[in-house]
């Protein structure tokens, strides 16, 4: 009755055609015979490629999951009358980023030999993957499959756009925001990211940003800052007497869930950025990165917890959430080299930063609904500079150069883009629409229609 060896037929036809593919591919290159012909498969050649590709796939789906994290965090931190709109923006931005990055972004960011302006701007072409059933002669055995790499890198691009949506929430019009997303993910981000990760001038200059404290996070924050400045604050947020009117998030469980999702996804974000796990050294490094990433987040959360307790007499949950994220952002530029202790401290300083930065931005009347500019921008710059604490190859000057040049570039082009969008279609909804809520006026659908509000 018990079945020990279940001959599997599932998708037999695909399986079979695959084996043919493989035989050809493998036989041409290796003296070991395929398992189907004699039960062995030589990994001395393919193992490294397989492990690395697997790292990208796992890392990629973890970072993809961060899209849900941003969506929940932001939706939890807006008022319920804007929640549906925030959800739609998050789903749409991720989808549009996916398409824009495939159509232009990826090759613009990784131009290989195809720079238009050498080291500064890549070229434009659709992304193509290896053919199905590719063999050893069709891949770069020292790296990973293009498909997995594209998948992984795409998620970083989408994360950049997610950062923006949190800052400009509750007042930006849907379509201008989505058009900005396309430009950001298709053009702006790929260009500045190519300077570093595409082998451009910044990487030549010796800038070091392991997983993107600057390349991803501060970039997103710079684009968000430009948006916040062009669009302006939410109606009623800053009173004439200088006081700040809080507009508490409507669903803190959702926001907390979002934070946890981001924390989880960050293991893919930082760990995957090792770009390899097919050797002892690589996989041990990925482990270090996981451990450091976790402890930096913990440091950020604890710092914000203690600080808000002391400063305000009551711990502030939303600051603790921001603190954990700031810890994560801070360690992102160098999650490998620090010891656990240093990583905790780097994260904790990130947490301290945002406790001061959030009210500071309010004093400047820059209305950042979820604290994204502080978390991803200020802590991102901190993290980039903190690389020098543990990585002796990095110099403070170059780190500063890198983060300033990318932030300034992104801020300027984003500001121009937001200005154009504002002139063409108006970037901000009407005051009445803000008061009634974007869900009613922009979408016509309530997030929680059964609950009175």
């Amino acid at each position, binding site marked *: 009755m018990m079945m020990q060896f279940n001959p599997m037929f599932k998708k037999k036809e695909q399986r079979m055609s695959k084996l043919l593919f493989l035989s050809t591919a493998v036989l041409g290159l290796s003296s070991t015979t395929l398992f189907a012909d004699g039960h062995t498969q030589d990994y001395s050649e393919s193992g490294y490629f397989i492990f690395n590709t697997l790292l990208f796939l796992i890392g990629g789906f973890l970072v993809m999951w961060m899209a849900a994290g941003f969506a929940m965090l932001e939706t939890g931190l807006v008022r319920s009358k804007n929640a549906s709109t925030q959800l739609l923006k998050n789903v749409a931005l991720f989808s549009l980023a996916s398409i824009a990055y495939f159509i232009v972004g990826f090759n613009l960011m990784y131009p290989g030999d195809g720079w238009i302006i050498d080291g500064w701007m890549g070229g434009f072409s659709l992304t193509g993957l290896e053919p199905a059933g590719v063999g050893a002669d069709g891949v770069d055995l020292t790296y990973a499959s293009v498909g997995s790499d594209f998948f992984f890198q795409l998620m970083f691009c989408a994360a950049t756009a997610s950062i923006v949506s949190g800052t400009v929430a509750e007042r930006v019009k849907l379509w201008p925001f989505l058009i900005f997303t396309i430009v950001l993910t298709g053009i702006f981000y790929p260009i500045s990211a190519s300077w570093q990760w595409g082998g451009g001038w910044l990487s030549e200059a010796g800038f070091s940003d392991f997983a993107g404290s600057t390349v991803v996070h501060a970039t997103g924050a710079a684009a968000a800052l430009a948006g916040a400045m062009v669009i302006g604050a939410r109606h009623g947020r800053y009173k004439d007497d200088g*006081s700040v*009117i809080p507009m*508490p998030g409507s669903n803190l469980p959702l926001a907390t869930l979002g934070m946890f999702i981001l924390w989880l996804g960050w293991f893919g974000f930082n760990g995957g950025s090792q770009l390899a796990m097919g050797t002892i050294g690589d996989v041990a490094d990925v482990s270090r990165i996981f451990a450091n990433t976790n402890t930096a987040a913990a440091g950020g959360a604890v710092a914000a917890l203690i600080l808000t307790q002391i400063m305000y*007499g*009551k711990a502030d949950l939303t600051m603790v959430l921001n603190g954990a994220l700031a810890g994560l952002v801070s360690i992102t530029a160098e999650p490998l080299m620090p010891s656990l202790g240093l990583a905790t401290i780097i994260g904790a300083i990130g947490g301290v930063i945002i406790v001061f930065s*959030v*009210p500071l931005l*309010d004093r400047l009347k820059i209305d950042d609904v979820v604290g994204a500019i502080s978390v991803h921008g200020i802590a991102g710059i901190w993290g980039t500079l903190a690389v020098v604490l543990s990585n002796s190859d990095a110099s403070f000057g170059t780190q500063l150069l890198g983060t300033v040049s990318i932030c300034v570039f992104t801020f300027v082009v984003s500001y121009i883009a937001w200005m154009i969008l504002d002139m063409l279609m108006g970037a901000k909804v009407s005051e009445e629409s803000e008061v009634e809520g974007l869900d009613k006026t922009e979408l016509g659908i309530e997030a929680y229609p059964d609950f009175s509000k």
Partner: protein
Amino acid sequence: MKLIIAVIKPFKLEEVRDALKDIGIQGLMVSEVKGYGRQDGHSEVYRGAEYTVSFVPKLKLEIVVADKDASKTVETISEVAKTGKIGDGKIFVSPIESALRIRTDEKNDDAI
């Protein structure tokens, strides 16, 4: 008949309900309100910005009673809902001209 409108602290609901049942009040409705009076909100800090919570959550009871039951109803609520601390609430009485039980078409005192 009288409509008795009582604003009380939310956690007193069960006690008030039981006390009213004991004196034979056989129906009422409750709704959630926010209010202020002497008890006037409190200030909090949210993300570094200080602000005032202007309204305190309360429960509003509405009870239609026969004229003869009005005063004992008011007294009962008042006794049970009292904590002696600020924000205990208030009881207002207003006139009702007619009442109807939808199910049976009973009228006025019979309908309550």
